[in-house]
């Protein structure tokens, strides 16, 4: 048994690793009735059940009403304790033993026991509920989980035997044990996801009107329809919810870490960016993700510009080339296209200097970032033309292609710019083809496109394992839309993913990243950053690169407070 020491050095990590904290504890707190944080979260969560939430804006509610075993530290270098006080990993890397806090309580005051964790994880892994985050994070890692997709969801006995065969157990009230199918050094990150939570069997069954078969999804989710039955182990609880309008959170008095300083968090669900911006300007919001169209307005406003905060996210964007089409199957042609996009101009003029140019895969701020790897894709129109010549392809050959574009303002302006770049630098007339979002998804899944973008990846957690599998041949038509053939890549990624020590797997990932860039599987263009307005009286906000654009700092709301203003 190897015990991994977990201590309270989150603050140190913040400074050491470029964490992003606003204000300071020196500021004087405002009276309790002013400890209110008002945020626009854009859109309602699809469910109040965290296991069913698949996007970070949805997890805004899940992350605060419930708490997973571990959570990312502020510098995103490792995990730190959350609901688990500590955890051990067996020497073969197959058994994770989580030591639960003995003082952990549900929002209604009852103690959280290990059986609740087993019940919660089984609820999440019930194939009939088809939760979006099970595959591949949980079914591919937990022992007995791999049959997830093949369970007959119309048979309660089939579901039960699958769930009972999972490597989840509770040897005593404060120990939760997870057995893995194979060593997975990244499992600590998986255990920090908002979907991996405990649930109260009595509450779920009471809301369902009694015990129910595992096939009955309506009953299994009945508890999530009423804010009153959302009893979590998190630091906040829901006090009221009006769909499509707002949701209010108040502190849970039984939270083990003491009550948070904020007395109220109000999430508004305003999908119209202009309205949200006006709401901020009339003093009714404390934080706001600035729509790109309003970035200049903010910069020119003497007051607003002081409240603006730019923070990089662990997400990279790129252009995807359909390698099933000639001559896009030729790496030189893909490289030529990638080398003829002026990324500096794109980020400066079109993206208003919020995002940063990138020519490599792993974003800055994450282990594995190496800008020098990106040189083969660097902007160089002359070299691009030579590559085309070498491939025996003319600009006219490329002009038959179209650039598939989702119908949002952001995507349209980026792609119009890129199309113009190909026109100017290569003489290729690749028209922008704007299509509604659902149609785009359905077309890329079927491979019905020439070039598509900007497509991207945001870290689920800051581990390289989360990134490289999206370009394996198994992901062809699921995330690897272009289906570029990269000999040896799959084996390389598989080897890295199942290697235990970081020092052994990092070089493997580096090799994989080099291959991705050199063959221009996709053309990397920019790393996303978020431009947010935050009132100066919002203190102690700790922002990380995996936070949602609408809710920066929500992993660390416990220490946030409103200062006198």
């Amino acid at each position, binding site marked *: 048994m190897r015990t991994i020491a977990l201590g309270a050095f989150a603050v140190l990590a913040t400074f050491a690793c470029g964490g992003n904290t606003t204000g300071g504890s020196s500021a004087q707190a405002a009276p309790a009735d002013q400890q209110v944080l008002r945020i626009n979260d854009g859109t309602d969560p699809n469910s109040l059940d965290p296991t069913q939430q698949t996007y970070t804006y949805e997890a805004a509610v899940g992350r605060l009403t419930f708490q997973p075993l571990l959570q990312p530290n502020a510098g995103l270098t490792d995990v730190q304790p959350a609901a688990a006080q500590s955890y051990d990993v067996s020497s073969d890397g197959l058994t994770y033993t989580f030591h639960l806090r003995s003082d952990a309580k549900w929002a209604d005051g009852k103690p959280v026991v290990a059986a609740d964790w087993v019940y919660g994880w089984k609820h999440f892994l019930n194939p009939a509920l*088809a939760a979006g985050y099970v595959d591949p994070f949980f079914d591919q890692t937990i022992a007995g989980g791999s049959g997830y997709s*093949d369970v007959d969801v119309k048979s309660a006995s089939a579901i039960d035997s699958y769930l009972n065969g999972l490597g989840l157990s509770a040897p005593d009230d404060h120990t939760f044990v997870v057995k893995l199918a194979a060593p997975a050094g990244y499992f600590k990150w998986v255990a920090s996801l908002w979907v991996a939570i405990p649930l109260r069997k009595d509450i779920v069954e009471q809301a369902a009107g009694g015990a129910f078969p595992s096939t009955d999804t309506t009953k299994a989710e009945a508890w999530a329809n009423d804010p009153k039955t959302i009893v979590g182990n998190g630091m906040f609880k829901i006090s009221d919810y009006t769909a499509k309008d707002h949701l209010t959170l108040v502190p849970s008095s039984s939270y083990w870490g003491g009550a948070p300083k904020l007395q109220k968090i109000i999430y508004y669900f305003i*999908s119209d960016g202009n*309205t949200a911006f*006006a709401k901020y*300007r009339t*003093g009714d919001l404390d934080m706001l993700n600035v729509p790109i169209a309003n970035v200049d307005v903010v910069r020119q406003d003497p007051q607003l510009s002081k409240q603006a905060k730019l923070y990089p996210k662990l997400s990279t964007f790129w252009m995807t080339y359909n390698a099933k089409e000639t001559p896009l199957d030729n790496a030189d042609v893909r490289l030529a296209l990638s080398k003829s996009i002026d990324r500096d101009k794109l980020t400066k003029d079109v993206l208003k200097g919020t995002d940063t140019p990138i020519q490599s895969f792993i974003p800055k701020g994450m282990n594995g970032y190496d800008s020098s790897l990106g040189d083969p894709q660097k902007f160089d129109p002359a070299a691009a033309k030579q590559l085309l010549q070498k491939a025996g392809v003319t600009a006219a050959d490329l002009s038959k292609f179209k650039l598939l574009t989702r119908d949002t303002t952001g995507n349209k302006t980026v792609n119009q710019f890129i199309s113009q770049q190909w026109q100017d630098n290569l003489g290729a007339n690749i028209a922008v083809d704007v299509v509604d979002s*659902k149609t785009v*998804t359905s077309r890329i899944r079927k491979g019905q496109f020439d070039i598509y973008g900007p497509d991207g*990846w945001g870290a689920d957690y800051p581990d390289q394992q989360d990134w490289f599998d999206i370009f394996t041949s198994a992901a062809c038509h699921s995330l690897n839309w272009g289906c570029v053939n990269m000999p040896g890549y799959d084996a390389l990624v598989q080897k890295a993913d199942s290697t235990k020590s970081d020092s052994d797997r990092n070089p493997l990932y580096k090799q994989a990243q080099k291959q991705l860039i050199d063959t221009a599987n996709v053309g990397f263009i920019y790393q996303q950053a978020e431009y947010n307005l935050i009132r100066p009286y919002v203190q102690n906000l700790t922002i990380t690169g995996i936070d949602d654009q609408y809710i920066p700092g929500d992993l660390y709301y416990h220490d946030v407070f409103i200062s006198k203003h």
Partner: protein
Amino acid sequence: MANTAIGGRPARGALPVRRLLAPSSRGAALALFVARRVLWMVPVLFFVILITFTLMHLAPGSPWDKAGGRQLSASIVENLNTRYGLDKPIWQQFLLYLWNVTHFDFGLSYQYQGRTVSALLVSAWPYTATLGVLAFCVIVPAGIGLGVVAALRQNSRIDYIAMGFSTFGASVPNFVVGMLFIIVFGVMLYNITGGNYSLPVSGFGLDDHLIMPVVTLALLPTAFIARLTRASTLDILRQDYVRTAWAKGLSERLVVLKHILKNSLIPIVTALGPTFAFLVTGSVIVETVFVIPGIGRSFVEAVTSRDYPMILATTVLFSVVVAIANLVVDVLYVFIDPRVRLT
């Protein structure tokens, strides 16, 4: 909604046959007429559902596709299809849906997991209906008032102002007006008063939250009704019986209210029916701009996320409301114009 355009029904006033009906038989005829029209709604709804159902399933994309990030694996999509009954053949899904609708069961929403469509609509409609009814209460007096005044003072300054306003109201789109209001009465008013007062820019509340959305919602129909009233009143003004009334020396009040206004109402009532239906089923734009949690927004969100049960239920709701509004208009004719007979 866009498909319930304002206006469109021909006036039934052109039935000159005058018959003396005893009150009781007239009441019976009315009841028969209403009953028949209500029965007609059944085939109408059937076709509305059939067409919506077909178009919806023809639209590319599935409810389970994601705009970004990991896509669900094929077998998980299968499980979701099983969970929501999408694994059955299309014709079976259609028949099952019809069967459920006759039991007032509109199914489960895909977008808001685990919640029934009926519950979502029931919680959303009060917001939409409140705005719609209030806007209607603005439109009727404002539209008719402006129109009558403009007609009575034709080619005067009042006429030009009234018609100038209605040209503006009819030609500037809702989202521009809404955004303009937000900037002027929200942001600018806030800055001018030093942060002490502004109209709330979003959300629903039974207070000053209502002002901007109701005015924005009322603007276009008011302009439309004003123009219609003006034209119709001008038409009546030239009638012989109006000239007779003036010649008899009747007071202006009597001539205008009894002889002119009542007779010019037929085309206005015709237009007000669909207008009312359009208002209480929600305006997509006004609800989006002012963030009203009503059914106009639900409909758009349902379409973009391919939430089939929600799309169907909102369409059915719109159709029922439009059909009822038209029915009410037809019945109102009887009371406005004694010449009208319902057949």
